[in-house]
């Protein structure tokens, strides 16, 4: 012990001191640790029991997260058709420059579909066990299996899902739902919410009778999960927003697109605001709602020429927008 103490002082180029090292009060330790990344912190739980309880405290985690807000973007890529996937951290400009990046790689064998992500935690379902949802924090390499769904997905039914944080109760929540046929081919969605740490899926009352035309995880913004759904009869788009504070649904009004919108809309999140990608004959417009649930605050962020003219035959997806307002599009490729 004494030898290593000498090492500490000697490594700083000073003469070793005889007196024992100065100890700092807990609140100063907390302030210091808050600057460290999660993977460092996990290891430091081994220092002593009080450090472990400090680091495992949800309040500490939340503050630490706030301090590291400007973190890297995680990109999930599938290696092959069997859905083995890797996750890599990509600082945004590097994605655009397409240079090699070093990232921590994890391999799961049996990812099925994505439920959502929030604060760097991923929520997804597992193959062969569709009733189970898994939470995974790739940064610290820990995962958690959630209580099973009590609803089975029927063949051919639509599904919705989402994952987010409820700041009023300081808990993470997962929402999922499947469509069911209620009248001569008409379908509606039955959605349920699970609060992390509890074991029951609670049914959301009065989920509007609209359906997702394609599977896309809900977008988490301002304590709500948002989906772009459609009235099947008229194919008119509706943004349905589930507020985690009271687990109730509401429609979010869309901007006045101005021109005849063609093709599907897409939802995305940028600067913690909800965005819509709309398509006209010639252009793609990106709309941003500065003030959540305030229709007047929709502003057209930018307009890009539609890339269908460049020989692409399918609609591009906006993957993300950088702080300097560069937008990254992705095309789904089919073999």
């Amino acid at each position, binding site marked *: 012990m004494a030898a290593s103490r000498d090492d500490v002082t000697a490594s700083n180029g000073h003469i070793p001191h005889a007196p024992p090292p100065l100890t700092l009060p807990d609140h100063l330790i907390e302030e210091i640790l808050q600057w*460290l990344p999660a993977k460092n912190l996990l290891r430091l739980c081994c220092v002593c029991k009080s450090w472990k309880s400090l680091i495992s405290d949800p309040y500490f985690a939340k503050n630490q997260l706030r301090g590291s807000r400007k973190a890297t973007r995680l990109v999930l890529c599938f290696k092959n058709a069997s859905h083995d996937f890797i996750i890599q951290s990509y600082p945004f400009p590097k994605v655009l420059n397409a240079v090699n990046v070093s990232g921590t790689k994890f391999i799961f064998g*049996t990812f099925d579909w994505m439920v959502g992500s929030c604060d760097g935690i991923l929520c997804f379902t597992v193959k062969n066990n569709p009733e189970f949802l898994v939470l995974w924090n790739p940064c610290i390499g820990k995962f958690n299996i959630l209580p099973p769904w009590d609803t089975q997905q029927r063949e051919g039914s639509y599904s919705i899902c989402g994952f987010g944080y409820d700041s009023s109760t300081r808990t993470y929540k997962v929402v999922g739902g499947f469509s069911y046929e209620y009248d001569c081919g008409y379908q509606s969605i039955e959605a349920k919410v699970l609060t992390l740490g509890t074991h029951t899926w609670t049914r959301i009352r009065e989920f509007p009778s609209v359906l997702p035309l394609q599977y896309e995880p809900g977008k988490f913004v301002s304590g709500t999960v948002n989906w772009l759904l459609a009235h099947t009869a008229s194919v008119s788009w509706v943004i349905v927003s589930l507020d985690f504070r009271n687990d109730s649904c509401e429609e979010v009004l869309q901007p006045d697109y101005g021109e005849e919108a063609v093709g599907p809309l897409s939802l995305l999140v940028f600067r913690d605001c909800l965005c819509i990608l709309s398509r006209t004959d010639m252009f793609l417009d990106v709309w941003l709602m500065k003030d959540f649930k305030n229709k007047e605050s929709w502003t057209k962020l930018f307009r890009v020429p539609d890339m269908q003219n460049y020989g692409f035959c399918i609609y591009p997806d906006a993957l993300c927008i950088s702080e300097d307002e560069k937008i990254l599009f992705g095309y789904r490729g089919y073999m």
Partner: protein
Amino acid sequence: MAEETESTKTEPLKTAEEEFKKLEITEEEESELKLETSDHVTFMVEASIAMKFGAVQQYLEVSPAASASATAIPLHNVASRELILILEYYRMHDWVDAGERDLKEFDERFLKDLNYEELKELLLAANYLNVEKLFNFLTKSIANIIRNKDVEFVRTFFGIDNDYTPEEEAAYREENAWAGVKFV
């Protein structure tokens, strides 16, 4: 040609002199506060800097007379050695002409001159004085020192005794082994 070089030589000298005069004036105008450290050393400190210390502000709120009088404001938990360092830091960071690079170089040198014990003592002083900028700088710097160091180093650094049993510690390290998790 010769005249020209002559004039360009004198030109900056003149401005430097003017600058100096200006500085003298501002120094005269600048009010000062008397601070007394725990080892009973008194310091005359520019009010603009002393007022950045939360502890000084708080003292003056309670006894506003101290700002004008000759009474020294006591800093019970700060020794003269720490106060000198804190003033050095704030004078540099307050200096209007200091560029980003100057400050970076200053910060690096400032840290290099401190051993780990002095660094912790300075953090305690900064915490007592309630000086946000230096406090954040110090906590961040200590975090950088322990970043990626092993657990043993961290314990020694903070003088912490390991209260885990060897079995508990082994189990914990096992649990957090840094590896990919395979799902079945």
